[in-house]
């Protein structure tokens, strides 16, 4: 016997008829160790019981119900092991309350020409920080990770495998190793598309649904949808353009909530390090249901109409009418701020330009307005903010930077 090999691998070899004499002898020794072992060996080698046990196993895991069961279990495990909300505590959190009280004193932060600050060299430093681009990693069922091309906008998950939007292959021979392509299309596997900070990518799912993934986000989806529902999971931000299918609702699970639709367009921002998950509806109709692990789970599902946004937090839930553009223009290449707080705006910027954000002292109580292209360098963006009178400091950190917001001498 090979040292360290589990007895079950030897038993498989025996069933396959390829166990060596030594291995068979080892199995015999094992079977003699206890009455229970002997029973198991007989059970495996008796046609009737082997058939019975395999039948139960296939029933449990290899039927449509079985595939759903496994997906449900993995989801449950993930939801009960994820780190709690807002694990990366924000040093500005205590200030939020204070900032809220100062709202009356809030100055709409418009471009002003009356300041000539001494920040030239720092801005030059930030000039080198390029905006994000098409970057993503695809994780296959067997754990292999594929870095996707930066020259492509997105991928298509088809019956024949995975290709880029222009039809070229992503450089995978099969989706899951040296087995049949047919087999790959029959079995259901969970796949994962992840963008880093400063990355975005588009994906077309097996049902034709398009998903745009914003920076620092992960979409988990099955290689094939079941006949009853289409379920995916998102951590981070994504824009969904769901293909209508009345027989198979499309479900998006994120921390704390499940969004259920038949066919519509909407945006979900559910970053693990943020307090709230925001679902913004562009077209059609969606239901937002709280997940079982959310404290206020007994709340009835919310139905959103176009232009509405649901905000689901650890212990809160509300629906607002919003300017949809604020939440979806990123997919068309813009930051669009319409009265955003500095926290909201800078968090978006830091994800796209991949810089570290530090607040010094209290957060400036200002609001952000404007539409800025996402393909500008960070330097040109900071130039605008500098002109507007924002106090900040750019600190180099390796080949990245830290942006310290707030007054220098305090």
């Amino acid at each position, binding site marked *: 016997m090979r040292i360290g090999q*589990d*007895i*079950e*691998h030897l*038993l*498989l070899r*025996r*069933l*396959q*008829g*390829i166990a060596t004499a030594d291995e068979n002898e080892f199995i015999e020794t094992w079977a003699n*160790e*206890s009455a*229970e*072992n002997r*029973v*198991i060996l007989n*059970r*495996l*080698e008796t*046609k009737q019981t*082997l*058939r019975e*046990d*395999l*039948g*139960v*196993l*296939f*029933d*449990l*895991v*290899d039927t449509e119900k079985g595939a759903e*069961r*496994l997906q*449900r*279990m*993995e989801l*449950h*495990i*993930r939801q*009960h*092991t*994820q*780190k709690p909300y807002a694990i990366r505590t924000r040093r500005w959190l205590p200030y939020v309350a204070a900032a809220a009280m100062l709202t009356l004193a809030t100055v709409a932060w418009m471009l002003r020409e009356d300041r000539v600050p001494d920040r030239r060299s720092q801005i030059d430093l930030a000039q080198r920080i390029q905006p994000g681009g098409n970057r993503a990693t695809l994780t296959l*069922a067997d*754990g292999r990770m594929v870095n996707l091309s930066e020259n492509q906008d997105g991928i298509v998950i088809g019956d024949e495998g995975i290709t880029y939007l222009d039809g070229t292959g992503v450089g995978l021979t099969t989706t899951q190793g040296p*087995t*049949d392509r*047919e*087999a790959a*299309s*029959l*079995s259901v596997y*969970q796949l994962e598309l992840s963008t880093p900070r400063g990355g975005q990518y588009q994906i077309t799912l097996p049902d034709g649904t398009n998903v745009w993934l914003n920076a620092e986000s992960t979409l988990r989806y099955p290689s094939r949808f079941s006949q009853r529902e289409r379920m995916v999971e998102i951590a981070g931000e994504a824009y969904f353009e769901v293909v209508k299918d009345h027989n198979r609702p499309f479900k998006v699970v994120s921390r704390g909530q499940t969004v259920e639709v038949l066919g519509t367009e909407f945006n979900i921002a559910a970053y693990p390090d943020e307090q709230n998950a925001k679902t913004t509806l562009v077209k059609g109709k969606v239901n937002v249901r709280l997940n079982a692990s959310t404290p206020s789970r007994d709340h009835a599902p919310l139905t959103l109409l176009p232009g509405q946004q649901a905000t689901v937090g650890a212990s809160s839930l509300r629906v607002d009418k919003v300017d949809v553009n604020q939440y979806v223009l990123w997919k068309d290449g813009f930051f669009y701020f319409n009265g955003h707080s500095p926290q909201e705006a800078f968090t978006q910027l830091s994800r796209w330009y991949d810089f570290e954000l530090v607040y010094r002292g209290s957060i400036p109580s200002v609001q952000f307005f404007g539409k800025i292209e996402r393909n500008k360098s960070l330097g040109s963006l900071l130039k605008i903010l500098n002109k507007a009178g924002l106090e900040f400091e750019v600190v180099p950190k390796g080949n990245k930077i830290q942006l310290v917001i707030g007054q220098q001498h305090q």
Partner: protein
Amino acid sequence: MEDTCFDQLKLGDERVLSAYFNRHGRALLLFAYRMVADASLAEELVQDAYVKLWAARHRLESDAHIKSFLYRTTRNACIDHLRSTDYRMQAVSGESLAENSIQTDSDLLARMIHAETLQLVYAEVKKLSPTQQQVFKLTFVEGLTTEEICSQLEMTANAVFIARSKALATLKRVFKDTDLFLCLTFYALMERSADFPTLT
């Protein structure tokens, strides 16, 4: 690969749980189902075992340790469940079921090995093409006749024959030809296919 998973677990990366779920989850379901005879309950108990694994990760020392932790935790949960139902049963019948229910370590280990071996067989079958898998399931697992398979697969008898001999050819590759497993499969197929006596 195994080492990386273990290290990731120790580092607190909860995503690695899905690797352990792939490795033992199906076998654990079978293991639990054979004890409680209820698929939804088995599902619940097994997923709980993984959540508990996560909570206990700091005191686990190896992959083998993780595996026995998962089986032991699932087994204990099954026994707890059986006991709680047993009290109700006992009130009616005056007898206790829990007395004969599996509690020894050697029984736990044997059942674990049984379930794990079946998952390995399952993994071998999953290497077949979809049609081959289906024919395998219908004939070997469900024991259907050729006619029944035809109607299920909407194939003609000839097509079933072809698919089946292809399935057998692949099984032969996967399971070599002298093997017991293949013999079993053959017998199962031959029994159901007197109309194709040349099948070898």
